């Protein structure tokens, strides 16, 4: 008779972020917002493009934060949802001629369904097993996109070129700038939605599941529903990000959505602070800029430099940017007391 390995549910692998620390204070939020709105007016188009990508990856990291930080489900497969969103937008724009803005909600919806469906078999998996399953999904996606069967729609290995939209109503701003503000509005909307989602009953259900699934179900929470819902929402947001990404980069190709992207998004989440939504943008900045910095420091050892920087970050702030924010908050509090 094989013995059963009994475990008392350990402290959750994903630790809770206290609710009041979930978002930035109003003051800080407004400052951030002002910066985000004003910055593009002073920089060149390429920088604006980078800022757009910053927001887009920020959205993807945000989505992962909801899934892992919120409902405690690990995912190394976000690149798959990103890819589906990107291709949905690209196909709708190039083959159906749909307006770019309209493709985004559709991309989001398609990915929501996809995520929700994927969440079903994933219900029985957790921790390292779920990581493996999502990893499988991420590695499969580029191959699926290359399949000859879909080539007419996907453009096969070459992918599809996507037309970048002009600013509407003949506004005298560049395509990059228009796209930036467009993305910014969507990002803010999704951010507000996510914050409210996590504060709502559903959000509390997610967190109950994250902290102790058995207790949550004993309390009457429909664990299956909320877990798949979390996957769906996370996938949907990632899909929107993917769509925006396709438009910003102006093309989609299978090799742009590999497991490397999934791992990067994971790193972005950790660096930003797991479960801390504002940290998503810090994480996004990390994964966009640090690899470039590393390559600037040493072309031959760029990977090693990146690894060293990553190590330094996680030693100094094992809890990511959230830890920095808490320390800052603490200091500000102390100053106020004087």
């Amino acid at each position, binding site marked *: 008779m*094989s*013995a*059963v*390995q*009994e*475990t*008392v*549910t350990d402290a959750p*692998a*994903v*630790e809770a972020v206290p609710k009041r620390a979930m978002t930035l204070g109003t003051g800080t939020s407004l400052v951030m917002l002002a910066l985000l709105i004003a910055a593009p007016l002073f920089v060149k188009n390429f920088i604006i493009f980078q800022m757009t990508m910053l927001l887009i990856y920020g959205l993807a990291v945000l989505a992962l934060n909801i899934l*892992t930080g919120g409902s405690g489900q690990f995912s190394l497969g976000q690149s798959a949802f990103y890819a589906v969103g990107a291709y949905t937008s690209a196909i709708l724009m190039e083959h159906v001629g749909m307006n770019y803005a309209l493709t985004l909600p559709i991309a989001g919806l398609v990915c929501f369904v996809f995520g929700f469906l994927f969440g079903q*078999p994933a219900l*029985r*998996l957790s921790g*390292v*097993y779920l*990581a*493996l*399953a999502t*990893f*499988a999904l991420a*590695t*499969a996606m580029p*191959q*699926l996109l*290359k*399949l*000859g*069967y879909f080539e007419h729609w996907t453009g096969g290995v070459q992918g599809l070129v996507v037309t970048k939209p002009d600013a509407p109503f003949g506004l005298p701003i560049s395509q990059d700038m228009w796209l930036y503000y467009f993305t910014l509005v969507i990002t803010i909307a999704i951010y507000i939605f996510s914050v409210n989602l996590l504060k709502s009953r559903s959000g509390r259900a997610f967190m109950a599941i994250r902290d*102790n699934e*058995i*207790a949550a179900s*004993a309390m009457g929470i429909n664990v299956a529903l909320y877990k798949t819902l979390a996957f769906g929402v996370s996938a949907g947001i990632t899909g929107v990000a993917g769509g925006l990404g396709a438009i910003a980069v102006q093309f989609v190709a299978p090799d742009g959505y590999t497991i490397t992207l999934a*791992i990067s998004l*994971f*790193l972005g*989440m*950790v*660096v930003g602070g*797991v479960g801390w939504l504002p940290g998503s943008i810090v994480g996004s900045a990390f994964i966009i800029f640090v690899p470039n910095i590393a390559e600037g420091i040493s072309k*031959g*050892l*760029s*990977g*090693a*430099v*990146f*690894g*060293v920087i*990553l*190590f330094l970050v*996680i*030693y100094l702030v*094992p*809890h*990511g940017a959230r830890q920095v924010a808490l320390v800052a908050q603490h200091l500000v509090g102390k100053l106020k007391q004087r």
Partner: protein
Amino acid sequence: MELLTNQVLAGIATGAIYACMALAVVMIYQAIDHLNFAQGEMAMFSTFISWQLLQWGVPYWGAFVLTLALSFAGGILIERLLFKPLAKAPILTNVAGFIALYAIINSVAGLIWDFTIKQYPTPFGSSPFLGSQLISTHQAGMIGVTILLLIGLFFFFRFTRMGLAMRAAASVPESARLVGINTSWMIALGWGMAAAIGSIAGMMIAPVVFLEPNMMLGVLIYGFAAAVLGGLTSPFGAVVGGFLVGIFENLVGTYIPGVGNELKLPIALALIVTVLVVKPAGLFGRPIVKRV
């Protein structure tokens, strides 16, 4: 029917690679309760070290043993220097650490030995094994080494005090401390052993996949999959899982039309995931009962 048998046999032969890797994976999982993504890179680096020793004229088995010892020491060093400081950090942060380690090792290996493919010798020769076209003597040797390793590990864990202490530390760390076991050191030892086993895997695999910094990526993924399939708590399961994965991979490539090399991996992974959904603890893993 003959095609099936042949493919199964060929699958077992390639599966030995995954079985070897899976053993290292399970070893580290037993010690630290999660999977180390940098395991493959550590094995690759060890193999390069052995290659370098061979280049310097050290005879094969001398280089083998030396590499084993260096890998063991290296594993302990990496754990003490890089991961002990992260012991109190959240798991996800540790995973980020593994990813960082991966990047560093891969990059450094590329710099020292560059990315061109190198030949790596086998001590077993590569003539057909017992006249069979499907298994070479090297592959048979690999299977033999893996089985020997498995038996060695079994004896270590079952019949030695150190093995007992390591099992205890992994199983109930608090109780292990309460009988006087230094659980922190047990983790370091686990890393050392996993690194040593990984180096063996690397040195067995290199003759087949050729030596270059990215050689282990596919193998590692299959190794993980094999370990998970077999049940992360069971070295025996890991080895069986490795052979099964090898067979799956081969059969999928042979029998499912339109599946080129690229799709074999996702399909194999998908099959494993399906198994997990049915048997979440893997084929030979102990079913895990969770209490609140």
